[in-house]
C-alpha cells in the first residue's frame, strides 16, 4: 500500500503552486491512500515489453508556412488582464531584490 503523508502532500501542493490549509492537506493525504491503491493496478500489466502510448494519433511535428496573419490587438490581448500598465501585463515581483 502506497501512502502520502501530510508533509508529502504539502510538498506536492508547493510544486503545484496551491496554498493549502492543514485540514485540506490531511484530508487529501487520507484520500490518496485509497486513490493510489486503485490506480497502482496499472503496474500489474505494464511489463517491460509493452510500448508506451502518449497520444492516440501517430503524430510527427506539424509545420506550416511562416506567413504573417492578423493577430490579437494589444487591447484585446490585455482585455482580461488582472492589472496592466503601459500596454503591458502588470505582474507581482518575480525576481528577488538584489
Amino acid at each position, binding site marked *: 500500500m502506497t501512502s*502520502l503523508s501530510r508533509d508529502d*502532500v504539502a510538498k*506536492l*501542493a508547493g*510544486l*503545484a*503552486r*496551491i*496554498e*493549502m490549509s492543514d485540514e*485540506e492537506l490531511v484530508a*487529501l493525504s487520507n*484520500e*490518496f491512500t*485509497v*486513490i493510489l491503491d*486503485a*490506480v*497502482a*493496478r*496499472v*503496474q*500489474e*500489466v*505494464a*511489463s517491460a515489453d*509493452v*510500448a*508506451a*502510448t*502518449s*497520444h*492516440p*494519433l501517430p*503524430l510527427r511535428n*506539424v509545420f*506550416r508556412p511562416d506567413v504573417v496573419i492578423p493577430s*490579437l490587438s494589444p487591447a*484585446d*490581448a490585455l*482585455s*482580461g*488582464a*488582472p*492589472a496592466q500598465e503601459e500596454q503591458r*501585463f502588470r*505582474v*507581482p*515581483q*518575480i525576481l528577488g531584490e538584489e
Partner: protein
Amino acid sequence: MIRNSASEMAAKLASGEITSVALTQAHLDQISAVDTDVHAFLHVDTQGALAQAAAIDAKRKSGEKLSPLAGVPLALKDVMTQKGIPTTCGSKILEGWRPPYDSTVVANLKKNDIVILGKTNMDEFAMGSSTENSAYGPTHNPWDLTRIPGGSGGGSAASLAAFEAPLAIGTDTGGSIRQPAAVTGTVGVKPTYGGVSRYGLVAFSSSLDQAGPCARTVLDAALLHEAIAGHDPKDSTSINAPVPAVVAAAKSGNVKGMKIGVVKELNGDGYQKGVRNRFEESLELLAAAGAEIVEVSAPNFEYALAAYYLIAPSECSSNLARFDAMRYGLRVGDIDGASAESVMNLTREVGFGREVKRRIILGTYALSSGYYDAYYGSAQKVRTLITQDFNKAFEIADVLVSPTCPTTAFKIGEKANDPLAMYLNDIATIPVNMAGIGGMSLPSGVAEEDGLPVGFQIMSPVMKDDRMYSVGAALEAALLSKWGAPLLSTIPALAGSK
C-alpha cells in the same frame, strides 16, 4: 415548437413556416420558465442570440443559400471560448473572463448560422461525472430534479431534455458527452480524436479531450457533427482527412450484414438490472434489423479506469499551470511587496475547487521523479494494451457496443464525498478516449426499477464515425416503432414548462 427535433425545426425555417427569431425567442422563454429549477445555463446571451437569429432571417429572405441547420438554436458548453461572452469552465478562477477570440467550434457554428443561446454548466474544468463540481452550483436532471444530469457536460445534456435547446456542444475526455446523454435520455457523440478542432477548447487532458455534438435524435447529432468537424490548421492534432459521411449514415440507418461486437467485459457485475435489460433488448432489435451480434473480449479494459486516473490528472497538472493569475482570470493577494509565487499560490487556492486540486496534486505526484515510471509510464503502457484490444475486436466486428454507464442517474450528493465511487461512472466510456476512437450514446429506454433513462453505447474505429451513426439510427428507428413516440415525450413536465 420547442419539442421538435432540430431537423424538423430546420425544415420549418426553410419553408418559411417559422422564423429564427421566433424559434430563438421560444427557447429563451423556455429557459426563463424552467432554468431556475434545472440550472443548465451559466450565461444566457439573449441579445446576441436574437441579433444572430434576425441576421439569419434577413439572409434567408434575401434568397441566400443557407446551411442545413441555419437558424436553429444551440447551447454551448462553457469550456469553449466565444468572443466577448463569459467563459468560466465552471471555475471561480475564470469568473468574469470574456475571451478575446472564438474557438474553431464556435467559428464553425457561426459560419453555419447556428444560433448560440448561451453557455452551459459543467463540472469545473470538465473534471467530474455529475456537474456537482461546478463552482456555480449543480445542474438538476430534468427527469428528476433531485438527481444528477451526468457530467461533466450535465448542463448541455439537461438543456436538451428540458427543451431549452434542440442542439448542444459537449466535450468528452472520459465520457463527459456520453454519460450525461445516457442519464438524461438524449444522444451524445464523441467523434474520433482529432475529428473536431480543439482550438479554443480550454484544455483538461489534451491527448483525450474531444468536442462533439449533443442532440435529441441521431440525425440531429449527425447534422451538428458535420457542421463542427473538419481539419483545422490551428490544432496540430486535428486530422487532415475528409469528415466521415455521418449524415448519410444517419439517414440510411442500414445495419444489414453488419457485425456488432458485444464487449464481454463491459457488462455484468456492477451494472444495474434495468441497464442490462435495456441493453439485451437493444441487441435483439439490432439483430432483427439484420445485424449479426458477436461477442468480443477486451481483457485490458479492466485497467482503463486506473490508467485514466493517472493520465488525465498528469496532463491536467501541466495544462492548468496556465492559470497563474498573471494574464487573465482571478488574482488574489496582490498586495504591495507580494511575490508572484505567493500570488499564484493564493489565487489557485481560492480559484480551484476540491476535485481540481485533487487531480492536480495526483498528477504532480504521478509525474514526479522517482514515481514517473511506476505511475504515468505504466498508465501509458496500459493505453497501448487497450488500443490493441480494440484493434483485435475490430478485426471481428464493425462496431462494438455496451451499456453507456453501469447505473441510471444517482441522487445529487450521493457520491460527492467518495471520489472512487464517482470515477466508476465512466468505466465503460473511458476505453474509447484512451484509444482515440469514436463513441456514441443514445437512449434505449428506462430502467424498470426507477423509471430513469438508460444509454446504449456504440464504438467505431478511428475515422469510421459513420458506422456508429448507422447503428444508432437503426436502433433509434426500431425503438421508436416499438414505443410509438420518442422517449423524451414521456419525461415528467417541469413546472412552468412551455
